[in-house]
């Protein structure tokens, strides 16, 4: 399972990560259906479940968006060491940006966090790691 924290009004880093996930998914071929791709919002004020779904569907129907109560999200951010900070530009009239941790987390079938990747990690490398975890699970 791959996990990322982002938001749908994110211009650069989040869509780049999702586009890279799409390549991971493709590189996995038949194993793609065994992997899960989860996108947790860092912007619950704007990212409703419907909006998350619509946004992620642009990249893949297999990507799942997650949001929750403030409390549940805060606990999740804390557990993954995710930092988020809202940046409002006065008078811009176009909303705000959110500075946020942009790592991708790899969780194994037993639920253990195994690896995390910095922004820009090659999709083929991530796909290779997922394949190894899937093989492990078969042993």
């Amino acid at each position, binding site marked *: 399972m791959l996990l990322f924290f982002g938001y749908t009004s994110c*211009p*650069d880093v989040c869509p780049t990560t999702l*586009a890279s996930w799409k390549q991971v998914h493709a590189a996995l071929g038949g194993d793609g259906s065994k992997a899960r791709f989860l996108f947790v919002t860092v912007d*619950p004020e*704007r990212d409703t479940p419907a*909006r998350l779904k619509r946004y992620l569907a642009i990249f893949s129907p297999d990507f799942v968006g997650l949001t929750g109560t403030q409390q549940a999200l805060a606990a999740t951010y804390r557990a993954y060491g995710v*930092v988020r900070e809202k940046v409002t530009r006065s008078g811009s009239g176009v909303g705000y940006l959110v*500075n946020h941790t*942009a790592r991708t987390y790899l969780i194994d079938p037993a639920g253990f966090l195994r690896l995390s990747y910095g922004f820009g990690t090659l999709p083929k490398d991530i796909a290779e790691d997922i394949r190894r975890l899937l093989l492990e699970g078969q042993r």
Partner: protein
Amino acid sequence: MACGRRCMDGYGMLGLGVVATVAAAVLAGCGPRTAVGVKIRVENAWARPAVTETARHEGGGAQPGGASAIYLTLVNEGQEDDRLITAWTDVARRAEVHATKTEDGVTTMYHLPELVVPARGRVELRPGGVHLMLAGVTRNLNVGDRFQVALRFEKAGTLTVDVEVR
């Protein structure tokens, strides 16, 4: 861009002085190029998909959202540095040059008030780096859509560029 090349070459042959007015007229016919020796070319312009939907959350009002980024390469074939000063497009309320930086795993973006395109140089706007941020996207941008963005340069004037959503 073919027009630009032809006109600039034409100007080169005309030389200086007496024929300057003629050259100016020829250049004017080319549209955006307003300064002699400045020529900006744009390559490979594309953008990220975006959704415009304005979300409502319990207790909160409608909030603007929807963002994208345009990536492209600016090629300055002229002898002088130029600067990208401003950009605008129909599909977003605001287009600004931003740069992404990642520190301790946290990404932040900051606004660049101008972007220098050095003489005989090229500047690449690419994912995770410098990009043209679109904020307040006014229509859904789906893969395969095309739209236009206008780029205004200090010397080269305004160029209109076709952008493909990928």
